[in-house]
């Protein structure tokens, strides 16, 4: 029996259009930086793909800085813009970052705080995981001249909560502060019109929207020149160096095009499947907690983040895996050790609840049969995990 794959927020299968675009180019030779015919052909593929990406996103091609993926794009935005902004004015040392950011944003921010003298302020969220705008307003207004950068994600990767990007940008820009938006999880699922957002930098990655691994982009306003992370040939606006990867870039563009064109229909399908999944789980496990906003307009359509009181998320994951159902605990791993999710903790959940959670994320290959399969095994799995729950926690009476 095929595995039931409910971890599309981790990575989603490549769409056929992307596979075709990629495979068609794998045998072509030519460095996009070379001056001869084969080089120009490779460059043409890259530039046409860049134009396609820009057209879909609502930005200008020159704003698309190709990277190795979302993590590099986020690092380039956080570190590169921090360094640049502080070089322009040494008072700019504050980083205002939402408490529920992905580690690709949080960790460079923490690194800057530890090694570069940045003052990191984590902005609080409400119990649904939504940024408290007044906290941002207060933090910026306190001393706008000292803020290097604001970074807020478009939608959360664990619980799916949408962030008020428009309002964040408006607040920061009113004080002349630039904004970075991590849109890795949002593109392909939410309407993304970068011109309308008005953010200064936006990170995205191909493999979350039906493209290949190892390619992504930082969409970067024209006036912004972050300090590079990678020095070398200066291929991407002198902001990012490294030989360009035409097959991957072409496949990224093809996948993005498909993802955006079919977004409305897919979002509707996934919302329906998610509702079936959540209703079904509620029927089997009445005390399940559904995390994130209730209103569909406030969250990603394809993520169901659920806490199962009395269970350990990693027990649930293992038992479901044994039944051929792939999902995630939704939290990052440090040395393979599951940590309680910083997102759930920021939303005010206690550690036990945070550790009892699973993220089911649906995608373009998900069917009703997948949801049925999950529901057919989940009851006994939760019962088992509950029996085992807490057995490895400290504080149990000694034998």
């Amino acid at each position, binding site marked *: 029996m095929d595995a039931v794959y409910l971890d599309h927020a981790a990575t989603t299968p490549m769409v056929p259009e992307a596979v075709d675009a990629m495979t068609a180019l794998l045998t072509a030779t030519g460095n996009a930086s070379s001056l001869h015919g084969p080089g120009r052909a490779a460059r043409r593929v890259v530039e046409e793909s860049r134009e396609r990406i820009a057209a879909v996103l609502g930005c200008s091609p020159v704003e698309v800085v190709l990277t190795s993926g979302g993590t590099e794009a986020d690092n380039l935005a956080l570190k590169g813009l921090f360094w640049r902004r502080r070089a322009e004015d040494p008072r700019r040392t504050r980083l205002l970052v939402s408490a529920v950011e992905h580690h690709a944003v949080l960790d460079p921010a923490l690194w800057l705080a530890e090694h570069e003298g940045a003052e990191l302020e984590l902005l609080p969220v409400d119990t649904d995981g939504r940024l408290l705008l007044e906290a941002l307003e207060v933090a910026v207004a306190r001393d706008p001249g000292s803020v290097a950068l604001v970074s807020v994600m478009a939608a959360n990767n664990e619980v799916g909560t949408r962030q008020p990007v428009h309002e964040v940008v408006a607040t920061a820009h009113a004080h002349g502060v630039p904004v970075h938006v991590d849109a890795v999880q949002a593109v392909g699922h939410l309407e993304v019109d970068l011109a309308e957002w008005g953010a200064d930098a936006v990170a995205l990655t191909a493999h979350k929207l039906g493209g290949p691994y190892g390619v992504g982009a930082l969409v970067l306003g024209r006036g912004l020149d972050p300090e590079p992370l990678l020095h070398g040939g200066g291929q991407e606006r002198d902001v990012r160096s490294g030989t360009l990867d035409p097959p991957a870039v072409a496949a990224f563009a093809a996948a993005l095009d498909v993802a955006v064109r079919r977004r409305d229909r897919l979002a509707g399908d996934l919302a329906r499947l998610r509702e079936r999944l959540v209703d079904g789980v509620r029927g089997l496990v009445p005390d399940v907690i559904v995390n994130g906003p209730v209103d569909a307009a406030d969250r990603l359509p394809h993520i169901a983040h659920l806490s199962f009181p009395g269970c350990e998320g990693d027990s649930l994951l293992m038992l479901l895996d044994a039944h051929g159902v792939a999902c995630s605990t939704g939290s990052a791993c440090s040395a393979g050790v599951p940590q309680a999710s910083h997102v759930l903790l920021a939303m005010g959940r206690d550690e036990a609840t945070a550790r009892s959670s699973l993220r089911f994320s649906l995608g373009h290959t998900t069917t009703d049969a997948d949801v049925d399969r999950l529901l057919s095994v989940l009851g006994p799995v939760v019962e*088992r995990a509950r029996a*085992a729950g807490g*057995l490895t926690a400290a504080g149990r009476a000694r034998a």
Partner: protein
Amino acid sequence: MNGLESGRLRVVAAMSGGVDSAVAAARAKDAGHDVTGVHLALSRNPRSYRSGARGCCTIEDANDARRAADVIGIPFYVWDLSDRFHEDVVEDFLDEYAAGRTPNPCLRCNERIKFAAVLDRARALGFDAVVTGHYARLEPGAPGEVPALHRATDQAKDQSYVLGVLTADQLAGALLPLGDTPKDEVRREAAARGLTVAHKPDSHDICFIADGDTGGWLAEKLGDRAPRHDGPIIDAETGEELGRHDGSYRFTVGQRRGLRLGRPAADGRPRFVLDIEPVSGTVTVGSREALSVTTLVADRPRWCGAALGEPLEGTVQLRAHGAEHRARVTVDGDTVRVELRNPASGVAPGQAVVIYDGSRVVGSATIIRAAGAD
């Protein structure tokens, strides 16, 4: 011979990232069991307990375990036992030292983590047993009876001592596939199976003390737990103060090196630590003869099967790689009395005495008192 004959079981293989546990998991799979590999994360932040590659809880070890599971072809997960390990092993270790005793954390880990926290969780999740790479044998009992724990065939690698704390119920949930195989054969088998850890060095010492400097680690961690660190070094015969030390936890009974006494003993012979009194910080030293022990009193017995009823003429072992001593063992309630037929040297309270009848492990107890011939 190894507990693997009893049909198809669902088992958790505890995989440290070392060669022994990898081969044990592979053998369990070959025997037809449904095996799931589990690496135990014993520290939330691996670097805080240990760096380098000698321990069992570095990132590299977790990766080695994962690669071994890939090669064997079994699912693999990391289980976070860090809270339990900290409380039941690390804290216990510190408490014991603070009280002037010399604990063995490996026994505690087997008793409370591998064959307790892990086994309990495994059973609750629908597994039947835990497989480990310990060198000891489990001989199946008659139907309905628990298997008997025996020394490994390879005497040099025998680890039955650190399993002597396991009860019948714990042994009933254990599989030990390596007990009848010499270590070098296990390495050859690992290489033949294509396991990348075939030539990985053995781990030594205490896994949660990074650099092997137990004294330094204790000095940092003991804190308020030890009422005072410094104290006098007293001559057992004369009662004279020979010098002072800056931490009684740096000493263990039987220790000769590092006493740093300014002057030699009256008889010119080396002196050894005889006793540590943690409250006053007094360390008593004396001759090698004074270390000689013929009687042990121990408590907290744990029996690998039925509790010992009649007095036993058997053998005992007093430390992990220590010698075997012939002994008469008698039990009175929770007190175990051991009369050694050939004396032991340097026995410290807190050490476990593991009791054997031939090669079979009968049980263990924690030494509270040791006495020489009167």
